[in-house]
């Protein structure tokens, strides 16, 4: 059942009634909020003001909005200079280009320099839809989580995206924030706890048989899967693992010890993603069977977000199958 402490919306499984919004909207609201709280906050945009929602910041703080044009490498280096001087820059583009194109500039001038640039990768995952594989960034978590000093956060809905953005402005470290284009259910509330580096248990059954560890908007599908499986008598934990680096290893280990099996869920390549990190943690301290929901070493293609999520095996039925499979793999 839903963990009451997570303060999710009451009618979480009335899908039709739930408000829908994209996590990029949460960024847009959050960065305006952060800008009001701290005048050092500046936003840099690489010719994608509206689709990254950075135009909301531009309307509020025109003199603190910096237009970069289609120049993602310079987006990273100018932000490094601004942070070096004393600003808190948020850099916005599609994840396919930032950190897709400017990985070296991020590595040298942001991560190695350890400067507080907040890299906001929009339109991540296959759910960008009809644009096709070139724009469906599926490797960004892998790219960013291997860089020392870098924090990686992937919010699950518009409200968590807002909180993550506000929280990111308050750290003096480099952070990668991953956002999605399509509208997805808003199922957390203002009161849902959010702290960078702290995973939240959102579903909690007694004597759980497995744990679903999810991040990003697919967390909602993980909860729907848990709800449907509960009707079949399957008991689960569901962990909102929004911070991929530094991962909340103690929460992951606690769930593994309690349930004995794990399914990871992310809209990203399974190679090098959140699930890989979970496997690294568990392999070292408490190995249990793991199934990985995500894209398996393929590029995407055009389609609607829902078609693509289903096609690449990240829908509710795939999650349910993975849970049953992983429970079957447990040594009695």
């Amino acid at each position: 059942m839903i963990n009451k402490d997570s303060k999710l919306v009451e009618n979480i499984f009335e899908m039709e009634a739930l408000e829908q919004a994209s996590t990029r909207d949460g960024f847009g609201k959050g960065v305006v909020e952060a800008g009001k709280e701290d005048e050092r906050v500046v936003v840099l945009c690489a010719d994608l003001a509206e689709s990254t929602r950075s135009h909301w910041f531009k309307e509020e703080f025109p003199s603190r909005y910096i237009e970069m044009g289609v120049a993602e490498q310079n987006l990273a280096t100018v932000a490094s200079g601004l942070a070096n001087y004393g600003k808190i820059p948020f850099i916005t583009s599609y994840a396919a280009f930032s950190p897709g194109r400017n990985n070296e500039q991020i590595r040298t001038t942001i991560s190695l320099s350890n400067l507080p640039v907040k890299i906001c990768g929009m339109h991540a995952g296959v759910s960008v839809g009809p644009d096709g594989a070139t724009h469906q960034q599926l490797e960004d978590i892998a790219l960013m989580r291997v860089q020392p000093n870098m924090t990686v956060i992937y919010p699950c809905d518009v409200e968590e995206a807002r909180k993550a953005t506000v929280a990111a402005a308050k750290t003096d470290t480099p952070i990668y924030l991953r956002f999605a284009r399509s509208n997805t259910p808003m199922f957390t509330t203002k009161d849902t706890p959010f702290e960078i580096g702290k995973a939240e248990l959102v579903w909690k059954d007694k004597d759980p048989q497995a744990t679903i560890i999810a991040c990003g908007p697919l967390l909602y599908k993980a909860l729907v899967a848990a709800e449907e499986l509960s009707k079949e008598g399957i008991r689960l934990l569901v962990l909102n693992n929004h911070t991929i680096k530094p991962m909340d290893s103690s929460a992951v280990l606690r769930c593994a010890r309690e349930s004995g099996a794990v399914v990871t869920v992310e809209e990203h390549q399974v190679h090098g993603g959140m699930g890989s990190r979970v496997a690294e943690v568990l392999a070292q301290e408490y190995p249990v069977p793991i199934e990985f929901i995500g894209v398996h070493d393929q590029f995407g293609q055009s389609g609607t977000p829902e078609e693509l999520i289903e096609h690449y095996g990240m829908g509710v039925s795939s999650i349910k199958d993975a849970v049953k499979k992983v429970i079957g793999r447990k040594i009695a």
Partner: protein
Amino acid sequence: MSNIDEAKVCELEAKANEIRQTLIRMLTEAGSGHTAGPLGMADIFTAFYFHILNHKPEDPMWGDRDRLILSNGHIVPIRYAAMAHAGYFSIEEAMTLRKFGSRMQGHPELDRIPGIETTSGPLGSGLGQAAGVAYGARMDGKKFRVYCLMSDAEHQAGNLWESAMFAGVNKLSNITGVIDRNNIQINGMTEDVMPLEPLREKYEAFGWHVIDVDGHNIEAFCDAVEESKAIYEKPTLIIAHTIPGKGIEGIEFDYTWHGKSPKEGEADKFLKELRTLGGKITCNDHD
């Protein structure tokens, strides 16, 4: 009329020679590193640390200091040598260049040495960082200048032109860029490997004020920097024409010296050559 008197120029020329000698000792001790580029930039680094920069070596993170950003990080040994002579750290520490546990990394790192300003090595990224510092400083009405030293060959990298375009369109007149135009790169002469000319016209087309200068004429270089401070409507680029390896005949203009350091025996010969150089690199008529 020059902004710098003759006695000061003589003093700087002598200082540049001392710094060259420290550099040769550092590179020989390190057993690897770049020689030609650092020697060619010795006069300019001396001019910066002993005349141009508004800085406090004893308070390297002083907020209003001028920022000297080195884009082509591989020539950092000459910066370390100049900073040691200026009092940022000891010459003994500079001699630990490229050694395990040393702050004197093979390529400079922001977090290790106060006053080093940026991390660099991968080419083409210095001007963007300089532009970010300059943009932020202008937002806050700060008066300090941002100097960005670049190599010529790194202008083959596309990201640098993104930054040149950004600085030009935003009229970042608090930036003075300096190109070490020494014409060499690892694979040969720049104009054979991937031609850069016409550099002046390219920068002018990007909205910059451009000055060509002899990079070994300290007086002319300091005057060019003064001129750049008087340009309010655009950033300034100084194309400093330098001789790679300047000061040691066997290294001058030899691109094979781009990425290697002197051996023990060679070093003694080079040091002797520098000690007897006297006022050969000069714009003044020394008697």
